[in-house]
């Protein structure tokens, strides 16, 4: 998952930690966020709800949402 985020956000995977938030990454704007959502949906074969998309403001929240969907084993 970290490598996917790193690829979409175009940053080194080592910097993709749980504490990383949208505010920390200039490139992680609303358009990039949708790119990320689509990448996650395609990779984990699911459709996220609008509330989940809004909640995913950090790596930790992304993991929580995906965990609740059992997408992350």
């Amino acid at each position: 998952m970290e490598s996917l985020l790193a690829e979409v956000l175009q940053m080194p995977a080592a910097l993709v930690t749980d504490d990383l938030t949208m505010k920390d990454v200039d490139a992680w704007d609303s358009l990039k966020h949708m790119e990320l959502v689509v990448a996650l949906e395609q990779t984990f074969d699911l459709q996220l709800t609008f509330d989940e998309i809004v909640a995913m403001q950090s790596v930790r929240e992304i993991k929580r949402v995906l965990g609740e969907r059992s997408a992350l084993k």
Partner: protein
Amino acid sequence: MELRDKRVIVTGGVRGLGRCMVERLTEKGARVTVFDLDARGLEELERRGGVGCVECDVSDYEQVATATARYHEQFGAADVLINNAGILYSAPLVRIGPSGVEKHDPAAWQKVLAADLSSVFYMTACVVEKMVATRTRGVVVNISSVSAAGNAGQSAYSAAKAGVNALTATWAKELSLMGIRVAAVAPGFTETESTKEAISESVLRETVKRVPLRRLGRPEEIADGVVHVIENDFFNGKVFELDGGLIL
């Protein structure tokens, strides 16, 4: 997109091209709602049945916000928005009149920009907001015009339609990731009341001579183009020109 049972909003659907689109879409089994400011026309449309009617001046943001909120409460997110409402207005930047050189009326400029460009922005913002919030994979079709390329004698109208084309390309880039397609249909000169009202017979006769097919477009041909854009899931961010081969 298969149109049967889809919720479709058509702005300016009471008459002209919009009315023709409404008829074509209902034939296809879509659940059409017309947003229009013509209260009498809406009453007549409602009496015929089969179409929802909402009185709304789409060039007024407050009216659009209120009307779309009511629509969403009743039907949920729309699947398709057709931004057809607008006014056809012809005037050059300056003209030589009896009292010398006369400038384009700035009030007319504002009115055309509000009706033909701001309305598209307002309606799309309010309708797409709901599409995104409900993850609806929708389609927005903007009715542009060949005048977007720059038509002498139509400063405001050409500028507004060029703006519509720019919004079409911009929104396609922004919204495609969310599964929403945005495209435009640009009719050439078409046999409608508004064409006859805005363009003199002599100018129209000369214009027809420049159309390789030597005739005006028919409203049904434009409506078919709109249906094609909705149904073809790979058509996105582009302007579908239906002008008989006319180059301005």
